[in-house]
């Protein structure tokens, strides 16, 4: 069957997903410097993270401050991302539902990456050997486990949102729509996987076709539906609160763990100079911002003293 529309949706979905992520990331990093607002433990302090300590525990800390460990920071973030460690600690009942859901997504993303590799290998004319065959088998396994995770976890989350009064009160239409959409995606994927000889081969051939713009026809209606729905979801997710999957990096590294003192950081010093020149328009009588006075001027004005 002619699947041009499916390919067009796939291209549009890919572009929209990348565009939305880029827009959100750019709009975050373009913001001016903010004050420090860290929260301990800070993972990149490799010596003290275990008990929540910081370099501020040393007298004259500015003389011998240990540099933050990039590896320890990434390790902390990865443990959180891969195992949803904080949810396990603070909300264990929810973790039993949300972890399969997230794990399902991770497995599917892993499957997509392997599929892309095999597609590139095919385009380059590499003969399928042991490695590529193994990768195909891995995709088969990752996909079915991913679908099951999405369905089981999504259903568990849906049930919890409906059955727990405290969670129900805070659940919106959007939560239910999102969860139903993911469960549906998992179900279509699972049916496609069960109803066809090889989900992997279909996925790889589709990827080859997409990369080479050959718009090859697809035999399975379910698979084309899965692809269409999947790319629509890919475009939609970063635009919602579910964008936390990439914004978490900034929430952790730029806010929660941002303990770098200004004195070590000429770039931050320069940025502080800029924000102190921003105009203030807060109206309260002790500020009287008129949209022209700067932060520096307002902060150096003592409202209790007569004007000079």
């Amino acid at each position: 069957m002619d699947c041009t529309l499916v390919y067009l949706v796939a291209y549009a979905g890919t572009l929209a997903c990348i565009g939305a992520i880029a827009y959100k990331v750019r709009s975050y990093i373009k913001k001016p410097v903010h004050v420090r607002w860290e929260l301990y433990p800070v993972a990149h302090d490799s010596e003290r993270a275990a008990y929540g300590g910081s370099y501020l525990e040393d007298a004259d800390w500015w003389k011998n401050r240990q540099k933050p460990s990039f590896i320890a920071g990434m390790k902390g973030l990865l443990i959180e991302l891969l195992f949803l460690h904080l949810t396990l600690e603070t909300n264990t009942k929810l973790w039993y539902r949300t972890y399969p859901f997230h794990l399902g997504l991770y497995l599917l993303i892993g499957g997509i990456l392997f599929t892309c590799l095999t597609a590139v290998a095919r385009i380059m004319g590499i003969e399928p050997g042991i490695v590529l065959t193994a990768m195909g088998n891995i995709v088969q396994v990752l996909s079915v486990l991913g679908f099951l995770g999405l369905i089981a976890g999504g259903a568990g989350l849906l049930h919890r949102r409906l059955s727990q009064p405290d969670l129900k009160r805070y659940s919106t239409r959007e939560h239910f729509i999102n969860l139903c959409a993911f469960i549906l995606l998992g179900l279509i994927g699972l049916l496609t996987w069960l109803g066809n000889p090889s989900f992997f081969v279909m996925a790889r051939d589709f990827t080859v076709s997409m990369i080479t713009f050959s718009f090859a026809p697809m035999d399975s209606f379910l698979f084309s539906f899965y692809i269409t729905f999947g790319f629509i979801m890919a475009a939609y997710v970063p635009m919602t609160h579910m964008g936390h999957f990439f914004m978490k990096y900034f929430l952790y590294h730029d806010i929660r763990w941002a303990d770098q003192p200004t004195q070590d950081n000429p770039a931050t010093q320069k940025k502080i100079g800029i924000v102190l020149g921003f105009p203030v328009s807060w109206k309260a009588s002790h500020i009287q911002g008129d949209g022209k006075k700067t932060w520096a001027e307002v902060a150096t004005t003592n409202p209790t003293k007569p004007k000079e």
Partner: protein
Amino acid sequence: MKAPLNLRDVSTVRGNLADIAEEDLIQLPIDMENIPWKPLGEEAKDKYCCLLDDMLVLQIPRPQTPREEEELVNRFLEGMRKLFTPENNWTFLPMLETSMNYCAQCNSCSDACHLFEASGKNEMYRPNFRSEIFRRIYKQYIAGEPFAKWRYGDIGLNWMTVARLGELAYRCNLCRRCAQSCPIGVDNGLIAREIRKLFSQELGINPPELHDNGSMLQLSTGSSTKMNALVVRDNVEFINEDFSESTGYEFTTPWDVEGADILLIHNAGEIMAWPENIAAFSIIFQAAGLSWTLSSDLAAYDSINYGTFYDDVQFARTALLHAQAAKKLGVKKIVLGECGHAHKALTVIADRILPQELNVPRESCFPILRDIVLSGKIRFDQTRNDFPVTLHDPCNVVRLMGINKPQREILRHLCPQFREMTPHGVENYCCGGGSGFAIMSRNNIEAWRNNISGRRKMRQICGAFSECLGPETKKYVCAPCSNCKGQIREIIKHSGLLEKNSLQYGGVVELIVNAMVDVNPGFIKWEEE
């Protein structure tokens, strides 16, 4: 218990939104007496928006006409828009915006909150309750998200919503334990602070204890205690004389010494309420042979910075005065005395507010005290501290700054019966007086602190002393923060826990001096004076 609140109730319910029944409060193993909750008077109800729970922190003038009601909403929205502009809110915009956009509504934060737990899980205290109201207003009116009303639900924005949201921002101690438990990094404590800020910076509405009698008084006279430089120097002189005599250790407190290594800034409230803390610092620093000084410059003898709790502009003004005093004296560093919010304010938050020329190094007193105690410069007799001691971790010092070990190393060295609370360190619970409440006592605030906000901490304290709760064993709650001490003092005093349970409180430095061989025994007093 009544049916739990729904978010929309904030705009529809007439009269009080919530009440806390005494039987819902968590139980304690000691005889703690609740302070009766008195209904607010008719005068207050006519004058202010009393719509939450018969506690009145913010005193928002009650609109008298539909036009005034509309004006309150419009001014609120105007302020809210400013909160989301980089020019007006560069200080906290990224944290606020991400907390608006990425919350998954999993409510993992709820069980982390001492207020939610202590109140018997009253919905009003769920950390996400006020945040989600604010978030929905943001999405519908500020961000203008497509179909926001349909997607998230309409909570209804009217003058009651605004008034309740303002007051709800003061049903939080800003301890940020909820933020610590959030897997995504959403910060409900920050949202409460931003709402407070909106009311202060745009509408000019703030608690008088924090603003008129707090930061404004500090900017005019130098201290929220009303002490000017002359009075503060007189009082410290009196402390020197009085404690030199009682301790048998002759000491002085240096003032305005140019070129000293250290500018020590105390919370001036200590001078009035806990002079032994001031004396203890002077004794220790003198015994250790440090080069140090206090400053009598405007605001520089009082480390408090109440702007931390409600207003960025007031915060910046005070922090600048502290830094300017240090610069003027040419000291090598500022050391902060036992005041938690002052620690966080000047060391961390001010770090990206002070221009580089005023960025004098700043540190906590605990590392330097630890180094002194462990250095062997001072002789100690640990048997003088041979009574059960537990440590309260001030949120600002521990969870928000990571200063965890130094104070413990001191206590382990000097106090043979030191024991931890559960949980402790970065997972501690707030004392219940955090974010300015410890200095407020009107309109049922005192009852709130005693019955609800301080309850979880008291349970922890009881747990730490579980085997010796009776009056026969003297026990010491070490709370190295003026605000926390104020809160714990009130609870101990109201229920007579010093008499009934021999429960005393104080800071770290008092324990150090109490164990000093060169000081007469008995620095810590076990009776009320």
